[in-house]
């Protein structure tokens, strides 16, 4: 058993794909139309094409919508991405217009920050202890 896919619900798959590739910097691995307004879209870390793929899930399920909205309103990130330098990413993303709900903060040796992905989720970035 291996972890090869992880998913995140998004309120608009194509808009999310633009944000996650053009702003965050991930690369599209698969983009397959599956029906009206529904796609199978997966992203990978640049240079890590055989690593875990992030699925941008269509969030049409009311149960998932309620869960996503509740997490967001409580300030809880839907997922987390590791970065080399949280401060640098925070600067870069803020300059790109990304809204942070938590500035880079050191907690137990890990530095983390939280921002909105504009598609219904809060995302945490973290820099592990060196």
């Amino acid at each position, binding site marked *: 058993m291996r972890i090869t*896919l992880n*998913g995140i*619900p998004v*309120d*608009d798959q194509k*808009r999310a794909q633009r*944000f996650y590739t053009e702003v965050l910097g991930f690369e599209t691995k*698969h983009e*397959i139309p*599956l*029906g*009206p*307004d*529904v796609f*199978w879209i997966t992203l990978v870390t640049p240079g890590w094409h055989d690593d875990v793929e992030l*699925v941008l*899930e*269509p969030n*049409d*399920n*009311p149960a*998932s919508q309620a869960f996503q*909205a509740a997490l*967001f*309103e409580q*300030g809880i990130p839907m997922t987390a991405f590791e970065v080399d330098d949280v401060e640098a990413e925070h600067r870069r993303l803020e300059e790109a*217009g*990304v*809204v*942070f*709900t*938590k*500035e880079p903060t050191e907690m137990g040796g890990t530095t983390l920050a939280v921002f*909105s*992905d*504009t*598609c*219904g989720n809060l995302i945490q970035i973290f820099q592990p202890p060196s």
Partner: protein
Amino acid sequence: MLTEARFVALCRARARLAEPSAPSVAALADEAGLSTGRFIKQFAALHGATPYRYRVRARLARARALLARGDDVTEVCFALGYSSLGSFSDAFTRHVGRRPSAFRRARHTLVSVPGSLSAPGCFCLLGTAQAAISEKQRRDTGARLAP
């Protein structure tokens, strides 16, 4: 960075915009303690759409869900408060990319649990996606091997 109070206010505004009888943008800005212009800007940066656009999207998301479970186009149109079938159809087509009747036909066949889901959970789609990926790989390999 957004303050916690501002974040909460913008989340509350988003929830209210999804209600059928949403207040005006100016009223929501007032509730959030912001000028209308600043409210629109901060709302869009956090939620990815202006308040007006978000309200349209929320309304059409509801339309998509109702059509996907097989509701009649005319009933959906008036249930959502559109004054005419033409304005509903135009707004739907502009945002979704196909007319409501075509969307209803296509999506209704994809729905696995009528009345509860307008699309299966994404990982339920994995099999269909994998078949398409395999087919593409087969075609690509065939093209490379072709003289």
